[in-house]
C-alpha cells in the first residue's frame, strides 16, 4: 500500500502532467470543448428519442428507450473519444518542437518515459473529465431501465481503453513527425484505418475479434469464442491487443523523444514480438477453433489460410523493420545482413531487421505447429511436405523484400522515402500480377503447374495457393520439363534476395571504404 501511495505521489509530481493540466484548464478552451461534447451527446439523445417516437411510439416499455439511449450515448462517445484523444496528443511533442521548448525539455533530468507518460496522462485525464461530465445523461438510462450498472461501468472502461490506445497512437506520430500538421494528418489517417478496418465486415469475421474496435467492444465484448482450447470473452482479446498496441506506440514515442536513449531497443523489439504473438494467438486460435470444434474449415483449408495469413502479415511488417538509417558503425554487420544481424537482433539496428523478420517467421511456424497438439489433433499427413516448402517460400520472399528495403535505406536519404518506395515495389510485384484474375474467370486453372499469365509467377500468394494442389497431385517428373509453379516463384525470389543482398553489401562496403578514408583519430 505504501509503495502504491509513493508511486502515485511520484506520478502526480510529474512536471509535464502538472503543467499540462494547469495549462489545459486555464482559459475558456476546455469549457468550450466540454460544452460541445455535452451538446453533441444531448443532440444525439434527442435524435434517438425522435426516431424511437416515430418508429415505435410508446410500445415496448420504458426499458426499450432506456437501452436505446444507453447505446446511442456510448456509440457517440466512442466516436468522440476516438476523435478527441488523438487530437489532444498529436501535437504533444511537435508543438514543443515548434515553440522551441523541446531542447530545453530534453536537457532536463526528466527521462523520455516521464515526458511521454505526462503527456498521455494529461490527455487521458481530460477525456476522463469529458466522460464524467456525461454521467448525468447516462443516469437517464437508469431512470428508464434496461441497463445494468455493470454494463455502464464496463462501457466506460471500453472508452478508457480507446482513449489510451488512440492517445498513444497520436503521441507516436507526434514524436515521429516533424510538424503538428503532418502528425495530425498521419494520426487521423491511422485512426480511420484502424477504426474502419476493425469495424467493417472485411475485418476478421469473428465477432469476438471485432471487439478490438471500441464500437465493436460495446456490442460484442461479452461474446465468447474458442481460441485453440481456451474459451475467452472478446473483451479479453480487446484488452490484450489494444493494450499491447498502445504500449508499443508509447515505446516508439519514448525512443523517438530522446535519441540518446538507446536502451529502449530491447523493449521495443520484445514488445513487437509480444504483440505479433498475441495477434497470431487470437487469429490462429480462432482458425483452429472453427476448424476442429465447429468443422467450419477443413484441415487442408486451415493449412492454406494460416500460411496466407503468415505471408500477408510478414509482408506488411517487412518494410517497417528493414528500413532505417544505416549506422556507419554497423558496417560490418550490414555486410552480411542476415548472418551478421543476429548479433544485434534486439538492438533495433538496421542490419538486424531481416533476422528479426525471420524470427517472426519462426514464431509463426512454431505457433502453427503447436496448434495441433493444443487442440488435441494429430498432424495432418501432408504437413511434413507442406510446412518446409511453405516456410521456404515465405522466407525467400521476406528476404527478397527485406533486402530491397535495406538497399533502398542505404541508397536513399530518408527512411520514409525508402518505406514508401518499398511498399510500392512490393505492391507492384505481388498484387499487380493478380489483376488478371477477375478477367480470366479460371483462377483455379491458372494456379496449376503453368500459369498462362507469366507475371503470376511473381505472386507469392498464388504460389502458396498452388502448393497444396501440387502436393496432392504429386510432383511431376522433373526430367519431363515440368517444374511446379511454387518452385519457380521460390527460385525467383531466392534469386532476387541473393542479388539484392549482394548489392547491399556492395553499397555498404563502398560507404565503409569512404569512411575509412577519414583519419582514424577523427572517427
Amino acid at each position: 500500500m505504501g509503495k502504491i501511495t509513493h508511486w502515485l505521489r511520484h506520478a502526480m509530481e510529474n512536471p509535464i502532467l502538472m503543467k499540462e493540466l494547469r495549462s489545459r484548464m486555464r482559459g475558456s478552451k476546455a469549457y468550450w470543448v466540454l460544452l460541445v461534447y455535452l451538446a453533441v451527446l444531448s443532440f444525439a439523445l434527442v435524435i434517438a428519442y425522435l426516431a424511437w417516437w416515430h418508429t415505435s411510439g410508446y410500445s415496448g416499455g420504458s426499458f426499450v428507450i432506456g437501452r436505446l439511449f444507453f447505446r446511442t450515448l456510448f456509440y457517440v462517445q466512442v466516436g468522440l473519444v476516438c476523435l478527441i484523444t488523438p487530437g489532444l496528443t498529436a501535437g504533444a511533442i511537435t508543438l514543443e518542437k515548434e515553440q522551441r521548448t523541446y531542447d530545453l525539455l530534453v536537457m532536463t533530468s526528466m527521462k523520455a518515459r516521464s515526458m511521454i507518460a505526462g503527456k498521455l496522462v494529461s490527455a487521458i485525464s481530460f477525456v476522463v473529465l469529458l466522460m464524467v461530465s456525461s454521467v448525468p445523461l447516462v443516469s437517464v438510462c437508469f431512470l428508464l431501465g434496461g441497463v445494468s450498472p455493470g454494463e455502464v461501468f464496463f462501457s466506460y472502461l471500453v472508452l478508457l481503453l480507446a482513449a489510451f490506445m488512440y492517445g498513444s497512437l497520436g503521441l507516436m506520430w507526434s514524436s515521429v513527425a516533424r510538424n503538428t500538421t503532418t502528425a495530425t494528418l498521419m494520426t487521423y489517417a491511422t485512426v480511420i484505418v484502424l477504426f474502419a478496418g476493425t469495424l467493417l465486415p472485411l475485418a476478421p469475421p469473428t465477432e469476438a475479434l471485432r471487439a478490438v474496435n471500441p464500437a465493436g467492444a460495446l456490442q460484442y465484448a461479452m461474446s465468447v469464442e474458442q481460441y485453440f482450447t481456451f474459451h475467452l470473452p472478446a473483451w479479453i482479446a480487446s484488452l490484450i491487443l489494444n493494450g499491447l498496441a498502445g504500449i508499443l506506440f508509447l515505446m516508439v514515442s519514448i525512443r523517438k523523444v530522446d535519441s540518446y536513449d538507446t536502451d529502449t531497443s530491447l523493449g521495443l523489439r520484445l514488445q513487437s514480438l509480444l504483440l505479433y504473438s498475441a495477434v497470431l494467438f487470437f487469429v490462429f486460435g480462432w482458425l483452429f477453433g472453427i476448424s476442429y470444434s465447429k468443422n467450419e474449415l477443413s484441415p487442408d483449408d486451415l493449412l492454406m489460410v494460416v500460411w496466407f495469413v503468415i505471408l500477408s502479415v510478414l509482408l506488411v511488417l517487412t518494410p517497417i523493420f528493414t528500413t532505417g538509417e544505416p549506422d556507419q558503425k554497423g558496417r560490418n554487420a550490414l555486410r552480411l545482413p542476415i548472418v551478421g544481424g543476429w548479433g544485434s537482433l534486439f538492438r533495433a539496428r538496421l542490419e538486424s531487421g531481416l533476422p528479426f523478420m525471420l524470427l517472426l517467421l519462426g514464431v509463426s511456424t512454431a505457433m502453427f505447429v503447436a496448434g495441433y497438439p493444443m487442440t488435441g489433433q494429430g498432424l495432418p499427413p501432408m504437413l511434413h511436405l507442406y510446412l518446409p516448402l511453405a516456410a521456404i517460400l515465405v522466407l525467400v520472399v521476406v528476404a527478397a523484400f527485406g533486402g530491397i528495403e535495406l538497399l533502398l535505406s542505404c541508397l536513399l536519404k530518408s527512411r520514409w522515402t525508402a518505406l514508401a518506395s518499398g511498399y510500392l515495389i512490393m505492391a507492384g510485384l505481388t498484387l499487380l500480377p493478380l489483376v488478371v484474375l477477375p478477367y480470366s474467370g479460371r483462377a483455379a486453372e491458372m494456379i496449376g503447374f503453368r500459369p498462362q499469365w507469366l507475371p503470376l509467377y511473381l505472386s507469392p500468394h498464388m504460389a502458396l495457393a498452388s502448393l497444396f494442389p501440387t502436393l496432392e497431385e504429386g510432383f511431376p517428373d522433373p526430367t519431363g520439363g515440368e517444374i511446379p509453379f511454387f518452385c519457380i516463384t521460390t527460385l525467383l525470389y531466392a534469386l532476387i534476395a541473393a542479388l539484392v543482398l549482394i548489392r547491399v553489401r556492395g553499397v555498404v562496403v563502398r560507404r565503409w571504404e569512404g569512411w575509412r578514408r577519414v583519419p582514424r583519430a577523427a572517427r
Partner: protein
Amino acid sequence: MIKTKNLRKEFGKLVAVDNLNLEIEAGDIFGFIGPNGAGKTTTIRMLATLLRPTAGKAYIDGIEVTANHRQVRPLIGFMPDFFGVYDDVKVWEYLDFFAAAYRIPKRERSDKIDNVLHLTNLGTKKDSFVEELSRGMKQRLCLAKTLIHGPKVLLLDEPASGLDPRARIEIKELLKKLKSMGKTILVSSHILPELADFCNKIGIIEKGRLIVAGDVKTILEQTVGGRILEIKVMDEAPKALEILSDLSSIKEAQLVDGMLQAQFSGTLEDQCSALRALVDADVKVLSFSEQATDLEDIFMKVTKGIVS
C-alpha cells in the same frame, strides 16, 4: 572543464564541425566566435547532448558526453539561440516546472526560484504571465531557467541576439555576475563587441574548423603581430620613420594618411624610449598613443569570409 577531442559532425556530405579540439578551464569565459553557419551552434548542441557527434569525443567536467549523457545534463545549463517559453504559464510556474524537471525537491524550489529571479532582475515579474514579458525579459527568464539547477557549465548560444541595446547591456552585466560566481561559460556570438568585454579566452571557428583558440592577449600577439603605435608629428615624418625603424621594439613603421603607424612588440618602458628617441632628435611630436586592437581585428585577420 570542457574538452573536445577531434569532434566531428557531418550532415550528409556537409562537414559542419571538422575535428574540433578545444580545452576550456574551470572559471573561464570562452567566447566562441564565427560567422553564421561556421559550426558554433552544432558544436554547442553536441556538448549539450542534443546532437550525437559523427566522430570524436567531448568531455564536460571529465565525463564523456555521448556515453554518459544522463550524468552530464545536470552539469550543463543550456540556452539555445532560438528558444521558446510556455506563454500560458506564470513566471514562477515556468521556473517551478523546470526546477521539478531537474528533480529539485519541492521544499527547495521556492528559494531557488527567488534567487534566480533576483539574479536576473525579474523579481517583480514573479506572478506575471510569461506572454506579458518583453523580449529582453524573456531572454533573462530563459537564463534564469538555465541557472535554476545550479549548473557548473553554461552553454550560451547567441544569448543577446535580437535584443535592443539596453537589453544587450543587461545580459552582458548578468554574464559578468555569473563570471564572478565562478561559472565556466562557453558563449557564442558573431557580434564581437558583445564578447570583448568579459571573455578571457576566445576561439574562432570558420567552416567547421577552429582557426585559433586561447587567451585574448596571446592571440592578439599571434595574429596581429603585436600592438600598433600611432604617432602624429609636425613636419619631420621621414626623419621620425627613420628613427623608429632603428628601434628594436619596432618591427615596421609606415606613414598612413599623415599618421605614423609602428608595429610595436615591447614593454611600456620601450614605448617611453621610443618617444624619448623622437624628442631627443628634435622631432615635434603632436600625439603618441597605442591603437586599440580588438576582437574584430583578430577576426578579420584570421577568417577568410567563407562559411560552410
